[in-house]
């Protein structure tokens, strides 16, 4: 049970005590306990560390800290040893004893566990030197690595709740709003609406009751930055909400979080309980006369509930369907009362703005997009993970310097930003700065920060089809353009990928896409044609190849491709025949070619087209590049 913190003086005293306690440790082993690393078995690594530290008598000198996500999910399980900053990747419980005796005790670096930079092939010892980290600007994620999400003292030790203390003791609601406005913070959930302005509208709306909501209904496939913040640093979100509540005069807040995020629900729940026990939530917080509490509302996983009016309906127990705006939630939201809805990342930025100052925040980024943005960098990229970068960084820097480029040395083709309803941007856009307005200009969007990288083996028509399929399944079905239009786009794209696209298909897609974009009820519908319109704009030649030449240039669309064996490369090893699920790959009577010579006993193989299901297993299995796709 956390001890009650009666007032600000006590808060500062506890902060000092926590800091002193932490200084008492000579070293800290920070092991990532995020969801990605959980999948790699990090909990066993942590248990092994705990046991080993005890065994070697180091428990008092070395602190073991289970943290939230560090972002470099490709490399889990991972740990950083402070203060030496030695960074180990892909560690298993079997490595732990060696790490403790060699590195922690003797200060030696274990080469085998260090990260290898795929570009230079060199080992990197310190976390700060790893290109993936070095090229980022980590504010939110730096905190993730420094705190145990369930440890309030950890959060206090990094300056936690000083922003809330300032907001509650020293600032008037108007001052807080002015600070947030001056910081230039814009909503990280997708819309990019100026946060301070939203609070101002809500506060100025006459009402007896107002509400605060944290939108943690992150539904984009492959995106998990909000999840990682909520899992890794829930106190920051709570603190941001306290500040917002004071600014608009709310006594109650809701966190709407997907039920598919069990660790986020658990860590946030634990943090709320701790904050409540410490008197940082509830009645008369820090004896300032201000009362505020938070309820967790678990969502059922409908994509549309991430749309703010859909979310409001869902919190109130209604069907999760959006409502027309205006009125905006800031005017009429939960139970008809003015409601501020911001997403997790936005809330997590608020305490920093209060404690470090709005000028500091406004000093980062571009003219109209300030601060940093967390992206979930996935797809055909070497360094999969969560990256935090200053607004205005180029896509090229994200993809190449941080992401480490495309695996297998393949060619970059496109990057989709903004989640399933974002646009696909081609190589020619790689040097464009990433901010709210620039991405929109290019026909994509910031969205919540999904970033999917695609290589030259990606068919853009197939990609557009994939996202239309996702969006038609996730459409709530309320308004005609989205409900009727998105499945029609999907059907047209399906025809094209099957080689049945008509000559009018491109024009019809364009026309339909524009109507769905302009006339849909909510932003989900309004942005849904982005994958289609952006690929039509930047990759029209691929559409034309499918329709006119019945050809899929990337070799993806099954109806338009054939697998065949390049006979003078085939060594007759039979790897293809062994993996082929339909026995389409078979030996011929002809001799194979081994090291440039015909071989009498080994037979060249061929693929029987009638049996081939174009699964691609043979091409994966062939070590001699003897199978081609046309």
């Amino acid at each position, binding site marked *: 049970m956390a001890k009650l913190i009666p007032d600000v003086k006590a808060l500062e005293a506890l902060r000092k005590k926590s800091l002193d306690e932490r200084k008492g440790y000579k070293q800290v082993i920070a092991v990532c306990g995020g969801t990605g690393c959980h999948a790699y078995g990090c909990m066993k690594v942590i248990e092994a560390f705990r046991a080993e530290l005890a065994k070697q008598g180091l428990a008092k000198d070395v602190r073991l800290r289970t943290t939230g996500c560090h972002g470099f999910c490709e490399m889990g399980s991972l740990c950083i040893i402070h203060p030496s900053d030695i960074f180990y990747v892909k560690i298993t419980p079997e490595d732990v004893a060696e790490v403790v005796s060699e590195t922690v005790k003797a200060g030696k670096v274990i080469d085998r566990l260090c990260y290898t930079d795929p570009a230079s092939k060199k080992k990197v010892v310190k976390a700060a030197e790893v290109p993936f980290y070095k090229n980022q600007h980590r504010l939110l994620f730096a905190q993730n690595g420094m705190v145990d999400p369930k440890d309030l003292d950890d959060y206090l030790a990094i300056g936690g709740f000083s922003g809330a203390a300032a907001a509650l003791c020293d600032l008037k609601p108007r001052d807080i709003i002015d600070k947030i406005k001056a910081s230039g913070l814009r909503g990280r959930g997708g819309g990019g609406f100026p946060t301070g302005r939203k609070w101002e509208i809500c506060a100025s709306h006459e009402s007896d009751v107002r509400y605060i909501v944290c939108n943690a209904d992150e539904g984009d496939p492959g995106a998990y930055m909000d999840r990682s913040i909520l899992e890794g640093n829930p106190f920051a979100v709570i603190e941001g909400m306290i500040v917002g509540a004071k600014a608009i005069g709310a006594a109650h807040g809701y966190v709407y979080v997907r039920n598919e995020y069990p660790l986020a629900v658990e860590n946030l729940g634990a943090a709320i309980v701790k904050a409540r026990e410490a008197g940082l939530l509830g009645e008369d917080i820090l004896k300032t006369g201000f009362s505020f509490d938070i309820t967790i509302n678990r969502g059922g996983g409908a994509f549309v509930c991430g749309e703010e009016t859909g979310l409001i309906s869902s919190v109130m127990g209604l069907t999760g369907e959006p409502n*027309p705006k205006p009125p905006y939630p800031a005017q009429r939201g939960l139970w008809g009362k003015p409601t501020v809805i911001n997403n997790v990342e936005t809330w997590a930025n608020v305490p920093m703005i209060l404690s470090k100052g709005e000028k500091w925040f406004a000093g980062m980024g571009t003219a109209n997009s300030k601060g940093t943005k967390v992206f979930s960098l996935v797809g055909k990229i070497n360094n999969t993970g969560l990256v935090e970068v200053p607004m205005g960084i180029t896509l090229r820097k994200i993809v190449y310097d941080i992401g480490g480029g495309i695996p297998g040395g393949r060619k970059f083709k496109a990057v989709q930003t903004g989640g399933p309803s974002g646009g696909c941007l081609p190589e020619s856009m790689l040097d464009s700065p990433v901010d709210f307005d620039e991405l929109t200009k290019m026909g994509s969007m910031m969205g919540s920060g999904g970033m999917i990288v695609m290589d030259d083996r990606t068919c853009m028509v197939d990609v557009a089809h994939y996202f239309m399929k996702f969006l*038609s399944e996730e459409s709530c079905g*309320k308004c005609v353009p989205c409900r009727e239009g998105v499945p029609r786009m999907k059907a047209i794209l399906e025809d094209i990928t099957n080689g049945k696209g008509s000559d009018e298909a491109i024009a*019809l897609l364009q026309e339909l896409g524009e109507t769905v974009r302009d006339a849909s009820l909510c932003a989900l519908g309004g942005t849904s044609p982005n994958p289609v319109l952006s690929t039509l704009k930047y990759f029209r030649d691929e559409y034309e190849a499918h329709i006119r030449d019945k050809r899929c240039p990337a070799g993806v669309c099954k109806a338009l491709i054939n697998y065949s064996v390049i006979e003078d490369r085939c060594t007759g090893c039979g790897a293809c025949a062994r993996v082929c699920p339909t026995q389409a790959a078979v030996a011929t009577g002809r001799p194979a070619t081994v090291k440039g010579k015909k071989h009498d006993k080994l037979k060249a193989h061929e693929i029987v087209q009638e049996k081939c299901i174009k699964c691609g297993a043979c091409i994966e299995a062939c070590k001699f590049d003897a199978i081609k796709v046309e």
Partner: protein
Amino acid sequence: MPDVTIKVDGREITAKTEETLLPALLAAGFDIPHMCYNEEIKPYGACRLCIVEVEAGGRRSVVSSCSYPVSDGMVVYTDTERIKKHRRMIVELLLARCPDVKEVRDLARDVGLEHEPRFAKRDKGCILCGLCTRACEQVVGVSAISFVGRGPDKEVGTPFLDRSDVCIGCGSCYYVCPVNYVEMEDEEDVRRFPQWKVEFEKVWCERLGRKVPKKMLEHFSKIAKIPEGWFEGSPAGKK
């Protein structure tokens, strides 16, 4: 409530502040198609036929006029090329969904859609405007029917698509449906709703001068706190 003045297609009209755009436009004689709007029911903004362009801050945005609040001095365009184009596409989508529904075909003619839909035809009768479900919830107060499913598979139905226990047989869903999708079989002594799997015994109503479902009289007596038997001709009633 004071009136506000709004400029529509260059013409000034007045509207009530608590109103949304569509009723003001209709009252002023503008011909705005709409299918999910009914003045007795809260605006829903789903059919998107009543879209207009609203100018604000030098930008024009497409909004559904049924749900958009009026404000003094606002500038509205109802008949731009952009609006007409989007309306035709919306109707084309509806027509592909419901190719055999007369009301949708009439609408296609009205908005100038001159060709058959360019999308594969389905054979739905319901346009999912939600008027029936909202009338049942907001006006009648029973929610006997609601939307079932989501997205392209959405439909109107009773709970678990089974016989509705709370339906009172009032027929609001039937009367309010803009495309005559809801079926009601009204015979001398019985009223049936085959889609909701319910039928109702009818009794004589002195006030209406005709036979109506008994359950409906009971429901309205209860919510309006009217003495039992009043409809039937008090006090004993004509059973």
